[in-house]
């Protein structure tokens, strides 16, 4: 009995572990110096769900991987860059398709966060699908203008406008 319970638990846990954003690729704006770049990396490292960060100092990009099973908040990632004194120019995230719920042509839900596709219909999510957030604060001002009218007013940090990347 205990064994069954244990295996059920392991199955649930591994399912939860899969129900995740698997990685984030972000580009920061407003900087060219390595000191500024390091400030952003240190600010991102403070987030409890971040496992590791691979920075590219020249391009000011960061490839972020996450702790297994942790709830990833894209809003907190964006805020960490702002707290360091800079902005997000681009944020792409990759999801594990198996974990998405309420999948419709307009988007999906993942771990209590909802994602609204702004410009393409979603027939089905590939096993590993990458999206880009199109909300204000997640793009440079220039790029944001392209999505301004397409974005839905979601207004909460638990819902994001996205496009296929």
């Amino acid at each position, binding site marked *: 009995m205990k064994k069954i319970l244990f295996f059920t638990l392991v199955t649930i846990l591994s399912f939860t572990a899969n129900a995740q954003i698997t990685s984030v690729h972000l580009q920061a704006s407003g900087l060219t110096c390595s000191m500024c770049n390091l*400030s952003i990396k*240190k600010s991102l490292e403070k987030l409890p769900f971040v496992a590791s960060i691979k920075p590219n100092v020249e391009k000011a990009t960061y490839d972020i991987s996450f702790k297994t099973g942790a709830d990833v908040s894209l809003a907190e990632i964006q805020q960490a860059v702002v707290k360091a004194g800079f902005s997000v120019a681009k944020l792409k995230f990759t999801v594990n398709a198996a974990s998405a719920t309420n999948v419709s042509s307009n988007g999906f839900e993942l771990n209590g966060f909802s994602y609204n596709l702004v410009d393409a219909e979603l027939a089905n999510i590939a096993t590993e699908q990458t999206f880009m957030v199109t909300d204000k604060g997640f793009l440079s001002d220039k790029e944001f203008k392209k999505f301004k009218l397409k974005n839905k007013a979601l207004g909460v940090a638990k819902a994001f406008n996205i496009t296929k990347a």
Partner: protein
Amino acid sequence: MKKRSLTALLLGCLFLHGQSQELFVFTEPASNMAKGNLGLRLMASSMKEAVGSEYNNHLMPELMYGVNNKLMVHLAAFISNRNTSFVTEGGSLYAKYKFLNNDDVQSHFRMAAFGRYSWNNADIHQQEINLIGHNTGFELGMNATQLLHKWAFSAGISYQQAANNGSKYEFPSSESNKAMYYTLSLGKLMLPKAYTGYEQTNLNLMVELLGQSLLSNGKSYLDIAPSVQLIIHSKMRIDLAYRKELYSNMIRTAPNGLVLKLEYNFFNVY
């Protein structure tokens, strides 16, 4: 000889390519430190007295802290041997609030408002109002900084008002205790040509123009200050600058000299 070649090389770079980025020696940019970061700074200056061959040596240890992404504060102490041996003559509290932030990839335009209160118990010995280690008083101002890839430009304007230096030294009523202070700074990142990591030493070259006009008598000065800056391991800063008077019709005790600044940054202190 080595020193001379190094100076020649650095000056050569300055004239060939221009200057460094926005972490200037004599002025603060409109950008702030990251929230929760702590910076420790030590500034040492050796300024030659205009009359005679004496040097005024000043030390200024400074603590800097990023309260949030918009507000940062500095606390500094002024130590000098201008009169006797090294003694602490005063201190200052500085705060800067960034109210405009336009970021783009590898560029930004930012504006900030700042205020400083300084106190000092040394004698008042010149017409120049200097809230960094000489006068008690306050300063209110604004600055704007543009970063464009490897270049940075910054301009600032502030109102300064001096008061008595403690109970012992009154501010002379015959002199102007109010001034406008103007700054213009240019900087350029020279090295590395391309970043491969945080361990690379950055070389920045800068030049700053610093001017003051006394409001009651119209007297003014204008200084130029070229500097070389090294950033080591993306955490530590070493600046070496030379401040030189270009023009002045006011009494200044020691306007020309060398300034060395060391800074170390601690990330996510709180």
